[in-house]
């Protein structure tokens, strides 16, 4: 259930001020986006970049004093809890990495600064999702993160990017329309838009269930869960690599956390919901891994792998409310996933999109090659890296919640996924080609990601202590 409100006895203005203070990080992200836009309009894109980076880091910093708070703001519509706080601490630095990664791709292009603005706005959408306490916030979150990311995909304005952007847009609009349509039924059935009023659904008519499913469709599309994933490989491959890295981490994590927020407030008897989520998890893991097995394009391969990783994420969601490990497993895996996935995409940005571009990378650029190996084996879940700790906790949470079969499916899938990622490793240590150029921002991104991929694994105890 929701944390209790610390309702001060002062007037409404006092309450308002306190609520705004709790939302300081979100407000900072919004101001960052607006500020970056102003610099872009002044034709100062060179200022726009550092402003965005600093703004987002300040927003993450503002979250630190909030850690441990369990409350809601604006009459329970937005939650300030472990999920939303850690979403900020993980996703904002992740956004910074993607922004830096995008710099070599977009610098000196027309409207360079817009890209940074769009990154910030999309990240804000993901944060709204992660803390949603009200269905309207779910809608706003999906909308904000979609509207921001459509143009990001289409940014290169060549044929491929335009087609991908278009496809993403069509898919997104329909999913969003279904979501809004269904949520009106939800509202009709419960008489409330608050997620915490969900228990009123128990024994409710079909209409209310329809609302719940519609919300799941909208969030499933954002999290690229099978069968709502079709846009993902095209969109990732059509747009810049930095955007693919961003889409595979930030909006996705936000949407998964939103599903977890819904799961926390489900009525006690709703046994169908965890099973439905478990089914989505099995589908996403299996489909993603198997489809990734035969890709020749590394961005598409990582896109399918990201679909599979969403499936692993859902193991934690299934356990929400049943296992004390659930929330911490979601947070730890989110941190590890953000680091290893952005790292892998950063190496793709350096090497090239085709599997053949990776031939000999381990010899021509040994450091980047070794880092790629670390990212990939962390994605598989080999200790002592972050991916292992995250998956171990997710599996543990699922077993704890009585979903042992789901954990076994997950472990089996991680065996298959090994073959997926080792295909890249094997070709990396083939015959050497000439070394690809390595722009400095890209190197900075993969080095940072490497530190965090290893760090999350080694410092899991510390991290867990802070979450729990």
């Amino acid at each position, binding site marked *: 259930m929701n944390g209790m409100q610390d309702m001060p006895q002062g007037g409404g203005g006092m309450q308002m001020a306190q609520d705004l203070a709790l939302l300081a990080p979100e407000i900072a992200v919004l101001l960052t986006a607006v500020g970056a836009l102003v610099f872009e309009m002044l034709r100062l894109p060179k200022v726009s970049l550092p402003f965005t980076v600093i703004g987002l880091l300040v927003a993450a910093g503002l979250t630190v004093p909030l850690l441990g708070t369990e409350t809601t703001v604006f009459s329970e519509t937005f939650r300030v809890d472990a999920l939303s706080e850690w979403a900020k601490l993980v996703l904002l630095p992740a956004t910074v990495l993607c922004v830096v990664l995008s710099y070599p791709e977009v610098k000196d292009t027309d409207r360079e600064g817009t890209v940074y603005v769009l990154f910030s706005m999309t990240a804000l959408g993901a944060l709204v999702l992660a803390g949603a306490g009200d269905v309207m916030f779910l809608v706003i979150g999906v909308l904000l993160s979609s509207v921001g990311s459509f143009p990001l995909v289409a940014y290169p304005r060549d044929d491929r990017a335009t087609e991908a952007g*278009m496809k993403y847009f069509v898919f997104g609009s329909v999913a969003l329309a279904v979501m809004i349509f269904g949520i009106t039924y939800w509202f009709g059935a419960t008489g409330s838009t608050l997620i915490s009023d969900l228990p009123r659904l128990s024994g409710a008519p079909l209409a209310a269930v329809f609302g719940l499913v519609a919300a799941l469709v909208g969030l499933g599309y954002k999290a690229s869960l099978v069968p709502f994933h079709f846009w993902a490989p095209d969109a990732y491959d059509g747009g810049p690599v930095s955007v693919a890295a961003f889409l595979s981490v930030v909006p996705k994590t936000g949407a998964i956390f939103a599903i977890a927020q819904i799961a926390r407030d489900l009525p006690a008897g709703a046994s169908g919901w965890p099973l439905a989520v478990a089914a989505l998890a099995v589908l996403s893991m299996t489909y993603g891994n198997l489809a990734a097995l*035969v890709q020749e394009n590394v961005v598409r391969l990582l896109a399918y792998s990201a679909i599979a990783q969403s499936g692993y994420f859902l193991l934690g969601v299934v356990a929400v409310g049943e296992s004390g490990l659930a929330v911490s497993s979601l947070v730890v895996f989110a941190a590890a996933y953000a680091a290893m996935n952005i790292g892998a995409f950063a190496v793709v940005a350096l090497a090239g999109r085709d599997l053949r571009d990776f031939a000999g990378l381990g010899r021509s650029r040994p450091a980047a090659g070794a880092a790629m190996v670390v990212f990939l084996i962390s994605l598989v879940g080999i200790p002592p890296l972050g991916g292992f700790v995250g998956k171990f906790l997710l599996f543990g949470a699922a077993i704890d919640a009585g979903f042992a079969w789901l954990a076994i499916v997950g472990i089996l899938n991680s065996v298959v996924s090994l073959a997926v990622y080792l295909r890249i490793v094997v070709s990396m240590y083939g015959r050497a080609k000439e070394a690809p150029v390595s722009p400095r921002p890209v190197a900075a991104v993969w080095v940072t990601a490497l530190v965090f991929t290893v760090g999350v694994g080694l410092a899991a105890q510390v991290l867990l202590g802070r979450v729990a």
Partner: protein
Amino acid sequence: MTIAALTILGPLAAAALILVLRRVAPALAVAGTGVSLAGALLTLVRVAGGARYEAVLPGLPEMPLRLVVEPLTAVLAALVAVVSFFVMVYAVGYTTGEGGKVRFFSVMSLFAAAMQTLVIAGDWVLLLAAWEVIGFASFLLIGFDFERAGVGRAALRAFLYTRSADLGLYVAIFVLISRTGTSEVSATLGAGGAAAVAAGLLLLLAAMGKSAQTPFHGWLLDAMAGPTPVSALLHSATLVAAGAVLLIRAFPLLPPTVLVVAGVAGGLTALVTGLTALAQRDLKRLLAASTASQYGLMLLAVGAGSPVAALFHLLAHAATKSSLFLGAGVFQHAAAGSTDLADLEGVGRAHRRVFLAFVVAGLALVGVPPLSGFFSKDAILAASFASPAAWILAPLALAGTLLTGLYVARALRLLWRGTEEAGSVAGIGWMGAGLAVLAALSATLGLALPLVADLLGAPAPEETLLVGAAGLVAALVGLALGWRIPGFRLLGPLLGPSERGFRTGGGFDGLVARPALSAARALDLFDRGVHAVVFGVARAGLALASASRVADERGLDGVIRALVRGARSLGGRARRLQSGLVHRELLLAAAGGALILVFLAVGVIGL
């Protein structure tokens, strides 16, 4: 405890330092394993003096990482340290004048560190971590010469096989932790009942994968693609040994039902891979099959209820098998890099001192007194005769002994026959030093085995004269037959399947790897198929759309097509904008949503 930790930290530090100080890679690797050796021996001395330690380090919540030093772990740590040190010394000579030293010595050191962690880990999480690192390091080492044809594939195969069996370890650990509420190894071994049976069988699965037991033995023969010191290390003290170590350490957990399964699985492996060894045409592949066969005998000993006999054989086998591989490596250099038995004919005559070490190790493996294998094989035979399942275990153990004699004699005969003058070998000094010590150990280690039994406080199985004589006869008959009659003729109709390593029904490849890949292709086709099929349909759809625009524009299709038309001017490439594609995919998404809806509706309303 600090001294015990040196066994891990020495090679680990070497693995890291080598990446920085690339020039002195071999020296650092030898120094690292040297520190490890000193630490392990000092620990052993202290433990013999009655000391016991445990270190608790922060790990997962409620599940701290632990290292335990007790007699069993101290003996295993000493074994790993001795073998890895002398193999590393040998490797200095082996790699003389070859490239890739930094990568080689760094990963070898990592490999040794991970194995040390595995043997002294006191909790399942740390053990699991070490287990996985061992698997990954072996993947890198087997695939070391990745430019040679088939090597990458062999490495991948080895990793996939062992990884699939690793599933057992993961699930077993989850079962044990959820049953007992702790991850401490010693505390979980008391779990009884159904949990013990389930976890025991799962641990057995994991051990069989790592120790290359039938039906998982296929990968071990291919793993010979790695450099020879790698084979020596991973066959005697690291990767393959990990499986046996796991079962020896988990022995108190295993209920009788699991023991019988383990014993029979081990015995069958000893038989199947013994025959395989007899049919190989490559010296290293012969030794590899023999490894699987000897680990089969260790599993048989565990199954017969005597982990001490298994430990004896693990120790004796580590010394003998590493010597045999190191000898094979010298012969390989002498025969211009080939390990084909046809190319190696007579090479023993040209390198007599190396051949002598090879013979000593070979006879020790067969179990000729007073060499080390005689004592360990005796213990295994005694255990098998004393076990409740003696009717099956004892004949299997005797057959395994006989086969060992056969294939060792066959190898010796081929190496001695003929008169070919072999070339000189670079780096023979270092190689000889490593080989000499290990061969001496394989000759004399038998005398130390009673001390080990005293240290563990667990007596070796009681031997009877009859059992000892039966074992000796089996070994000598095997040797004599193998020396007189070519192995191919002995096998008769079994030759074909033996040569292929009994990969019946396509083996593991056919059962797991191929179906997974074809399912993957089917799914990809499904994704692409929607693209390809719809490509034609899309154009027709566009034409249709303009024909019935008014009717369409009220529906979803119309909206999408209208958007597509708008995008046409935007992107300037309407031709390949496949309206039908998106729409087909949306249909699938809608179907998925509808399914969930039905599912939940049925659940909530309770139809």
